[in-house]
Structures are given as C-alpha cells and as structure tokens.
C-alpha cells in the first residue's frame, strides 16, 4: 500500500515513567483516523499491535501509549465546528484543548462545565477519562455535559448520545480510549459573566477541621478544593488551605476589574516560566518540599472572603510553569489519586499518616469532595472524598507503600483513578471497578478483535497481544485477551462481520433542556443548589 502513516517515537505520560515506542500518526484530518484504524485492524494477523488515541499527554501513566503499535495524535483535530452563542452548546473536534475553549468562549460568556487542575487537556482526553473538577459535588464529571460525540471504532464511525446508545456512550466515558477514537464532541458550556472568581480562602489547622468545613460548607460553593500539607505531623497533621468560590458576576467585581464589557471576560492565560532542563532526581525531596509547604501555608490568608481571583490562577495555578513535570528529574514521578465513600473518610487520615511516617514528601496533595458518579462503568468519581498525591519515583519502598494504600482504599470500597494510575495491579483494579465486565462486553461489541490497545490496557489485562489471529486455531483463541475470571461476551451478531457498531446519527442535540445547567444567566453563577443531573 502507501507509505506508512506513522513514525516511531518514544512516549510517556505526564509522570515521565515507563517509556515505550509507537508509530505516531498525526491526525491531520479526521479521515486519517479511520484509515489508521483500518490499517491497524488489517495488520492484526501479521502481529500488528493495535491503536490508541492520544491527546495532550496529561494523563500521568501509560494510558496514551501503545508499545509497538499505533498512537493517533488527536491534537491535530483542533477545529471548532459550531458555537451556539445563545445556548452555550459547542461542537468541537476532539483535539481542541480546554485552554482553547476558554480563550474563545469565556469572552462570549461561556465556560467549560468541568476543568481539571490543568487546562492543557483535550476534549477527547476529558471524555476518555471522564474528568472531574473542583465542582464535582455540584456539577458532576465532564461526560455529564457531553450531549453528543463522534466515535471512530473498528466497525465504523458512530454518532453517540446518552440516548442513542447509552452503553457505548458510557463505556467511552472513562473508557480511556479503548472503545475508539473520539473525533468530535458537542458540549453544553456553563454561563459566566466575567473571567473572575470570587474566592473564600481559609487555613485549617488540621485534617479534621478541614474535612469538617468541607462536609458542612461545600454545598454552598460551586468550586471547592483543599491543599494539604502532607508533612506536618501530630496535632497539625493534615493542616490545609481551603479555597472555595464561584464565578464572579460583573457586579461582584470592583470597578477596576470590570472595564469595558469584554475586558472582564477576556481569558488570557500565560505560561510564566518554563522548566528549561531536567534536573537530577531528588530536587523535590522532603527538605525542599517541606520548605515549600511551610511557605504555601503561611502565604495563605488565615481567612479571606469573596476575593476576586482570575480564573487561570484559581483553576490552573500549575499551568504558570511550563513542563513542571521535569522538576521530578529523570526518574519521573507518579500521582496516586483515590476516592473513598463518605463513610470511610478516615481512610484519608490513614493515608496521610502513612505518608508522614515514611517521610515521603508529596509536593502536591489535594483533597476534594465528589458528588454522585455518572453511569460509566470505568468512570472514576463516586460520592465521597478524593485525595491526590504527587510522589517522586526513587523512594525505595514506594511499591509496597502504594500497594498498602491500595488495600486501604479497597477495604473502604474505593478506587484509584486510571488517568493518574501507572502501577495498580490487575486484580486490584478489578476489585476497584466491579463493573469492568459490563464494560468489556460493550468493548467486545465495538471492537471484537481487540484492535484498540494501550499500555494501560495491557498492564491491567484489558487487552492482549498474543498472536491469536481470528482463524480456526481455537487454542490460541482461548489464550487471548481475557484475564482470568472474565466472562467472554459473544460479540453481538456472531463472530464474523466486524461491524457491530451501528451508525446512528442524531440531530436533536441542541435541546438545552436536556442539559445539566439552565441557560438562564441571571444569578445562576452563584447558585449553590445542584442542578439536575442526568443519568445518575
């Protein structure tokens, strides 16, 4: 055929661990996605190693890698297809970043419904990880705001809405790219009047007090997050800085921040500095991190109410430093993020205690509350507490420490977040995500031959490379793909034709009443009542 689509390159996630090589295909137009999937499917029997999409590579581990196979760089799909300024419904290509959405739409009075701690993620990555923000307790996760998406699967291209094919829609939400490549999505944005936030900041002297404040007070705020000092011990264990707030209305702002109508809305993010090289591992050690934590805690006001902050600083403080992941040195780092149900809040304390006893410095420790999860079988959020810890590789017993934390999380009925994971054991993953078999059934329907593969999928036993061509060799067939204990779900219309994904096209999507936020701008920005959630 023609020249190969991709070029070999080494890839890692944001944590810069476990690099693997793949053929990277730049999705310079959406047709290339389909062609790349076809080629991957065709090369299966000749030892081909499948295909996976990659966005901006902000997942920490191996989710957007595919050793020996093809990786579609979806950041090329960067067109904004359609914006309905009146309703805030936008249709964009999946490689558009949340940063671009903010730059373009905040001036028009619309903000992304969910933003993670970095705006440098793509819409595709946001859907594939079903990301959450500081507003999860009010607004749920990203996919609750997705009205429709276009998914390219080995069986063809499908337009999906939660109504048209709920199983596939929700298997894709949080499905880490393993159900297909998302090429476009329609999202209901939320109305804002300005690019400022009104923020209440308070210090909490210990963990109990911060958790108490969050339990009793979070419902009154749309956004809430606590930064925790994981090094202080004893009575000060878990001392924190709690920041909570909501979008500022024009009238909330002092005159000087209002300016002409558009200025107060302009969203101008900046990278202030860039980490120019990779310092040796060990720069972020207990000493330096301790100094930083002390500084951060003291810098925070003891209690401050309704202070205007620009959105960029409030949501994405780290984006001010480009490639800060290099600060962890050549060995890289990982993030451990888990969620436990409300009744097991004490797990948060146990985990922090454990970290302080081994004197392992977590530069970033962030505590949030989750509201109800959405129907995705692999979607991470569930009601309760979520704690995220950045940890350097190099501490000699990190493996045992994290395995022990897994155990605590499992016994509390919780789980870890796949977008952050780079080390959970396959069996532990299955316990944490008990609905994985449901997900596998849907995946087998749209990808019966397992063309969609990633390193994360291999590590967790969700995909396999054992050469088991779709031929008569029943023995090797049996060996493929399923980790022990999985039920094989027969692809829907018996073996043969690999086109089970039905091609539905829906056109009734701009119906704003089906969204999670009303478009009634007056006063909604300060509303604290949870809007109706779809599908929980």
């Amino acid at each position, binding site marked *: 055929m023609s020249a190969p689509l991709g070029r*070999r390159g*080494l890839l890692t996630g944001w*944590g810069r*661990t*476990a*690099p*693997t*090589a*793949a053929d990277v295909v730049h999705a310079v137009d959406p047709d290339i996605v389909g062609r790349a999937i076809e080629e991957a499917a065709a090369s299966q029997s000749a*030892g081909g*190693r499948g295909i996976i999409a990659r966005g901006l590579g902000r997942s920490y*581990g*191996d989710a957007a890698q*595919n*050793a*020996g*196979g093809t990786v579609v760089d979806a950041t090329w799909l960067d067109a904004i297809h359609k914006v309905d300024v009146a309703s805030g419904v936008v249709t964009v290509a999946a490689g558009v970043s949340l940063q671009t959405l903010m730059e373009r739409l905040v001036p028009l009075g619309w903000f992304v419904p969910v933003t993670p701690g970095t705006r440098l993620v793509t819409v595709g990555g946001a859907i594939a990880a079903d990301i959450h923000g500081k507003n999860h307790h009010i607004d749920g996760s990203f996919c609750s705001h997705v009205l429709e998406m276009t998914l390219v699967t080995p069986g063809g291209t499908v337009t999906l809405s939660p109504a048209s094919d709920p199983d596939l829609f929700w298997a894709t939400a949080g499905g880490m790219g393993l159900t297909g490549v998302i090429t476009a999505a329609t999202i209901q944005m939320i109305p804002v009047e300005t690019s400022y936030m009104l923020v209440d900041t308070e210090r909490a002297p210990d963990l109990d007090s911060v958790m108490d404040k969050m339990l009793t007070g979070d419902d009154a705020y749309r956004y809430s997050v606590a930064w925790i000092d994981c090094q202080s011990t004893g009575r000060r264990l878990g001392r924190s800085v709690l920041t909570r707030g909501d979008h500022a209305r024009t009238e909330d702002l002092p005159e000087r921040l209002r300016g002409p109508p558009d200025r107060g809305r302009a969203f101008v993010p900046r990278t202030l500095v860039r980490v120019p090289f990779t310092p040796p591992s060990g720069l972020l050690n207990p000493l330096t991190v301790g100094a930083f934590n002390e500084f951060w805690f003291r810098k925070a006001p003891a209690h401050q109410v309704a202070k205007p902050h620009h959105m960029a600083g409030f949501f994405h403080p780290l984006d001010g430093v480009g490639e800060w992941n290099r600060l962890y040195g050549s*060995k*890289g780092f*990982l993030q451990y993020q888990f969620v436990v149900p409300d009744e097991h809040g004490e797990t948060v304390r146990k985990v922090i205690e454990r970290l302080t006893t081994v004197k392992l410095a977590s530069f970033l420790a962030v505590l949030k509350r989750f509201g109800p999860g959405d129907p995705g079988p692999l979607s991470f959020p569930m009601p309760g507490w979520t704690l995220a810890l950045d940890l350097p*590789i*190099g501490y*000699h017993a*990190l*493996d045992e420490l*994290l395995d022990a934390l897994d155990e605590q999380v499992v016994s509390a009925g919780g789980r870890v977040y796949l977008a952050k994971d*780079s*080390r959970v*054991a396959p069996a532990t993953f299955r316990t944490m995500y008990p609905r994985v078999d449901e997900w596998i059934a849907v995946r087998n329907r749209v990808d019966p031959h397992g063309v969609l593969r990633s*390193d994360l999928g*291999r*590590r967790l036993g969700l995909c*396999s*490379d*054992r*050469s088991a061509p779709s031929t008569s060799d029943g023995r*090797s067939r049996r060996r493929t793909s399923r980790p*022990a204990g999985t039920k094989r779900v027969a692809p829907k219309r018996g073996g043969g034709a690999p086109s089970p994904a039905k091609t539905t096209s829906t056109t009734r999507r701009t119906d704003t009443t089906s969204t999670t936020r009303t478009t009634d701008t007056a006063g909604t920005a300060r509303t604290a009542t949870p809007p109706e959630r779809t599908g929980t």
Partner: protein
Amino acid sequence: MIDAIGRPQSVLVLGGSSELAQAIVAKLVPARCRTVVLAGRESERLSEAAERARAAGADVAETVAFDTTDIEHHLAFVDQVFDRFGDFDLVIAAAGVLGTQGVLERDPVATASLLTTNFTGLAAAMVAVAGRLRHQGHGRLIVLSSVAGLRARKVNFVYGSSKAGLDAFAQGLGDSLVGTGVSVMIVRPGFVVGRMTEGMTPAPFSTTPDAVADAVVKGIESGAGVVYVPSVLRWVFAVMRQLPQLVWRRMPG
C-alpha cells in the same frame, strides 16, 4: 508491562535453571510478575525451578527447551515463545558455563564449545530476542556478564574472554536499541558463592545470589544500564583495569 515503579509482569529466562536467574525470579514473582518462562536444557533442575515459581504464585510458570549452541533454531524458538506467551517485559540472558581452565587450555574443541555456549550462541539468541522486543516496542534485556570479562585473567581467560565478548555485544546492542522502547542492562557480578563456584575459595568481594537478585531488581527500577555486584566492584575494577600488565599477570588466584 513494566510499571512506573519498575515491576515487570512477565519474564523469559534463557538458561532457566541458573541459580542467579532463579534468585531474581524469586523476587519478581511476589512483586506481581505473573508469567515466568524458563528456557533451558531439559533437566530436573529446570522443571523444579518452574515448580518453585508456580508455588510462589506465578499464574504461568513453564519450561521450554533451549540450548544456546543450537544457533540455527534460535529465531524460530524465540518467535514461538513470544507467539505462545505474548509480550515479555523482561528477558534474562543467564546461560553460561565456567569450564575448567586446565582442560580448556589444552582442548580447542572444549574452548570453542565454551565460547559458543557463553558468547556466540547466547549473542545469537539475543539478536532474535532483540528483534521481538523491538517489535513490541518495550522491554528490558538483562545480560548476566561478569567482572571476569573486564580484564581476562590467566587463571580463567577462556571464560573471561567469553564474558568480555558478551559484555561488549550487550553494550553495543543496548546503544543500538535507544529510542525503540527497549533497553539493555548489563550485570557484572564478582565471585558469587553458589553452584557455579562450588568448591572454589571465594575471591575478595564475593557476593551471594540473593544480593545479585536485589541489585538486579533495583537496577530495573532505576533504569540502570550497568550494575556491579557488589557495587564497590565498579571502583575496584576501574583501578584493576589500569594496572600494568606485569602486575596484573602476577595477581594471585
């Protein structure tokens, strides 16, 4: 896949009954290595080694027939093993014999045979393995070399030169694999008190299979390219290699 903390999920050992390899496998299995494939000449020791890996909790612990000297079959052998078991995160090249210097010095056939076992045949198998690792885009090849290869000694120069060849081969192979997702780690133990050295008086800085295994596991985690066991040998041999020939030749032992 090797995870962020350096834990492999599958391992293939060339020279499956090796005491050092078994010590390494014994550490990998409790740390999540689910698939252990031991390639070697059929023997009770080989099947017992698989038995031990299974007892330690490996899901798959199998033996496959492999002889380093069976060069024409290496390619087919390696393809079969990878086709049957899937990816290997780790491949350990452990096969090797020490030989008896007194015999080797007088017997060209025995000398050639040792060189084939330790170097030619094993290097050929590594070529086949590297091909599959390159194809899978990830993996680590661990080569059990020896400080004996850093500078040949009159008392065991046939063995020493086989290790020198293997070591140089592994270095070059490692460099050629940069950017492919595959890496090579060379392990250079000193005198290891164990089966291979049974009946010999331990040299200075002698070590144990367990210590070698620890160093290897640590090396996988840190992504090391060369590991000395004990680590002080790195400095000892930096000096040894500089000694004048006259002094080196007269070193005892």
